[in-house]
C-alpha cells in the first residue's frame, strides 16, 4: 500500500513534466495541424539554459538564497527558450505554410537533428550532473513490508513541481479563455483565412503559440534538471515522444487533455517500472501511443475528426 502511494506521487511528478511539454505539442497541433517534432529538443535546450543560468548565479555572482535563484532561473530560461521556439518556427515552419502536409514535418525532424547536434557541439556530449539542490520532504506514512520498513515521502522538490504545474495550468487556461491573444488563437484554430479577414494577425498568433509552448517547455526543462540532476543533449527525443503520446492520449488540441494525458503517461510509466520491468518502460509508453492512435484517435477529451472531401 505504501509502495503504491509512493509510486503514485512519483508518477504525478513525472506526469507534470510530461504534461507541460505536451501542452506545447497540443497548442501547435491545434492551431496549424502539424506535429512540432522539434519541441522535445526545445525542452532540452530549456534545461541546458536553466543549468547555465543556475551555475552563473551561484558560482559567478555567488547568490545563495535558493528561492530567489530558482525564480531567476525560471524567468531567464523561459525568456531565452522562447526565443529559440520563435526562431524554430520562423526558420523551419513559416516558409512552408501552405505547402503540402508532410513538408513541415520533415523540416521539424531536420530542426530536431540540428538542435541536438548544436547543443552537443557547443556544450559537449557528456552528461552534466547537478547535485540535488532541494533536499528533504515530508513523511506521509510509514509501514513495513517483508523486506523492511518503507515510508512514503513527498519531497519538497515534488511539491514544487506539482504546485508550479498546477499554477501554470490555471494561468494558461485563463490566458486562452479570457485574453485577446487567447481569442485570436482560438479563432486561428478554427479558420485561419476567416481570422485573417477579421483582422487577426495570423502569423503573429502562430509565432506566439510557439513562444508559449517553448516557455512551458523551459519550465519543464528546469524541473527535469532539478528532479533528476542530469542533462545531456539527447533527453529531448524520449521526453518529446512521451509528451506527444500524452497529448494524443488526452485528445490533441485540448489543453486540459494534454495535462490529463501527461499525468496518465507519468503514472503508467512509473507503475510499469515499479511493478514490471524498468527496461521495457519505454515500450509501454510507445505501445500506449500506438494503441490510442489506432483505437481512439481523438483521445480522451478531444473532439472526433470529420473527414471531408
Amino acid at each position: 500500500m505504501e509502495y503504491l502511494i509512493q509510486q503514485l506521487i512519483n508518477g504525478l511528478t513525472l506526469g507534470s513534466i510530461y504534461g507541460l511539454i505536451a501542452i506545447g505539442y497540443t497548442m501547435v497541433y491545434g492551431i496549424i495541424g502539424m506535429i512540432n517534432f522539434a519541441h522535445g529538443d526545445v525542452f532540452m535546450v530549456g534545461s541546458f539554459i536553466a543549468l547555465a543560468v543556475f551555475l552563473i548565479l551561484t558560482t559567478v555572482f555567488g547568490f545563495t538564497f535558493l528561492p530567489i535563484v530558482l525564480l531567476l532561473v525560471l524567468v531567464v530560461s523561459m525568456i531565452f527558450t522562447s526565443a529559440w521556439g520563435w526562431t524554430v518556427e520562423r526558420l523551419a515552419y513559416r516558409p512552408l505554410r501552405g505547402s503540402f502536409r508532410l513538408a513541415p514535418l520533415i523540416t521539424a525532424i531536420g530542426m530536431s537533428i540540428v538542435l541536438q547536434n548544436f547543443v552537443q557541439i557547443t556544450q559537449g556530449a557528456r552528461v552534466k550532473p547537478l547535485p540535488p539542490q532541494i533536499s528533504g520532504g515530508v513523511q506521509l506514512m510509514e509501514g513495513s513490508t517483508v523486506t523492511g520498513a518503507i515510508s512514503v515521502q513527498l519531497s519538497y522538490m515534488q511539491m514544487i513541481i506539482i504546485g508550479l504545474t498546477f499554477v501554470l495550468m490555471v494561468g494558461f487556461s485563463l490566458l486562452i479563455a479570457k485574453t485577446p491573444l487567447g481569442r485570436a488563437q482560438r479563432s486561428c484554430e478554427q479558420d485561419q483565412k476567416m481570422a485573417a479577414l477579421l483582422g487577426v494577425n495570423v502569423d503573429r498568433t502562430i509565432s506566439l503559440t510557439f513562444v508559449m509552448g517553448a516557455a512551458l517547455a523551459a519550465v519543464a526543462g528546469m524541473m527535469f534538471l532539478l528532479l533528476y540532476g542530469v542533462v545531456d543533449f539527447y533527453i529531448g527525443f524520449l521526453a518529446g515522444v512521451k509528451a506527444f503520446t500524452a497529448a494524443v492520449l488526452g485528445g490533441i488540441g485540448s489543453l486540459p487533455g494534454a495535462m490529463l494525458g501527461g499525468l496518465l503517461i507519468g503514472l503508467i510509466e512509473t507503475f510499469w517500472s515499479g511493478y514490471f520491468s524498468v527496461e521495457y518502460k519505454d515500450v509501454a509508453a510507445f505501445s500506449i501511443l500506438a494503441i490510442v492512435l489506432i483505437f481512439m484517435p481523438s483521445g480522451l477529451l478531444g473532439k472526433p475528426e470529420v473527414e471531408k472531401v
Partner: protein
Amino acid sequence: MTSTDNQPANLNRPEGAQVKREERLAAPNRPTGRPGSSAHPLAAALKDSVIAALLVAVLGFFFFAIRTEIAPGGLDVTTRWMLWIVSILVVFFGRLLIQVFILDEQSRGLKIAVSAALVAALTAIFVINSSPGDRIGSVIFGVLIGLAAVGLVAAFAHFRGNEKAASSIAVPGLGKWLGRALFVFALVLPFFFTYFFPARDRQFIDLAILIMTYIMLGWGLNIVVGLAGLLDLGYVAFYAVGAYSFALLSTHYEFIGFWVALPLAGILAAFWGVILGFPVLRLRGDYLAIVTLAFGEIIRVVLLNWYQFTGGPDGISGIPKPTLFGLEFKRGEGGFADFFGMDYDSIQRFIFLYYIIFVLAILTNIITMRLRKMPIGRAWEALREDEIACRSLGINTTNTKLTAFATGAMFGGFAGSFFATRQGFISPESFTFLESAIILAIVVLGGLGSQIGVVIASVAMIGGIELLRNLDFLQAVFGTGFDPTQYRMLIFGLAMVLIMVWKPRGLVSSREPSAVYKEKKTIGADMVAQGEGH
C-alpha cells in the same frame, strides 16, 4: 480540431492551382521595395541584419558565450566571448550580403561597399586573434576568406537569376540519359577506382558500398512514401529485422549462409511489414508517421533488452561473409583467388560486396518500375493522390496499403541482411531513429516518387558527409583541435531544413505518370498535392 484549411481543398482544383496558391501564400514574406519611401536603400537591409544579429546574440548567449564544464567537485562555467562575438558578426554580415545581393537587389556601388565592409571586418577579427608575429598572414587570410564569402553569395545570386530564365527550357529525356550514364558508371565503378586511385581504392569502394546501401534503402522506402504516400518514420525497423534474422539464423545454424538467408530475411521483414502495417491502416498522414516511429523504437528497445535472444547491447558478432557459389574470399587453398589462379588481394572481397549490393539495388529499382506499371502500382499512386476517390472507385485500400508496406519492408530486409554480412557485427546501435530520418531525408530531398532523385540525394548526402572526413585543411583555419566530422549531423540537419524550405518538392521535382491515356507528358510534381496520405 485540425486545420482543414490546407488539405482537401486542393483536390478539386485545376492543374497548377496548387502552385499559384503556394505563390500567393509566399507573397507576404517577400520583401518588397516600398515605393515612395525616401529612406536610404540600405536602411531596410541594415535594420534586418541588425535584428538577425541581435537574435543570434540572444540565442547564442548560453551556448556560444557560456559553456558548462564538468570540473572536479561539480560543474564549472567557462566563457568564450570571442566565439559569441564572431558568431554575431558572421550572421550580421551574412544576412546583409544576402539582403543586398539576393533578396532586395541593390546597386553595384552598394554591393561593393557592403563587400568591402565585410572583408575589412573579417580581417580585423583575424588580426585581433593572431599573435603579433603573423599579422601579415592573418591580413591576407582575412581578405581571402572575405572575398570567398562574397564570391559565393554573388555566384549564387547570379545562378539564381539564370535559373529563373532557363527553367522554362526543359531538356527532354535528360533524366533518362543521366540515369543511363550513372548506371554505366556504377557498373564499372570498382575497376575505375582500382585503376585510377590504386592507393585509396579500398576506401572509395567502401564508400560506394555505403552509398549503394542507402540508395537501395531509399528506393525501398520510396515505395511506401513516394508511391503510396504513407509516411513511415520507422523504416529502420525492417532494416533491423533483416539484419537480425540473417545474423541469428547464420549463428545458430551452420549451414545457412548469406544466399539462403537473404530471401528468408526479405520474407521475414515483409511479414513484419504486414504485422506492423495492419493496425495503422486507418491512420492519417502524420499520425501514421508517429505510430511507425513508435513501432521502430519498440523493436529497437526489444532488441536491446532481450539479452538471451539478441545479445542485447553486445550485439551479434561473427556473422559469415558471403561466398561466390561456395568460394570464400580468403587467402590460400580453396579461396576465390586460388580457384581462378589470381593473386590474393583483400580488395577482391570489397568488389564482390559492391556488386552484391549493386545487383540488389538495381533489382529493387527494376521491380519498383515494373510494379508501377501494374495495377497494384497504379493503385499505390492513386492512393497517394486521393484516398477517398480510390475507395469510391472500388480499390481495396487495405490491400493496397499492406502490399506497399510489405514490399518496402522486404527491400529493407534485403538491405539489412547485406548490412549484417558486410559489417560482420550488428548491434541495436545501428538501428536508431536517426537512421530512419536519414533514409527519409534521402527520399524526400530527392523528390518523393523520383527514382533518380534518390540516387542524387544519397550521393550528395552520404558522400558529402564522408567528404567532411577529408577536409584536413580546415584544421589550419580553425586550429588543430578542429574536427570536421563532429559537424556532420549538424550539417545534415541544416541541409534537410534548407533544401526543404528552398525546394519543398525535392531536388528532382518532376515525375512521370505511370498510367498513360494517350500520350505521355511530364507533370511537374508541384502540380499535384502529394503525400497527403490520409
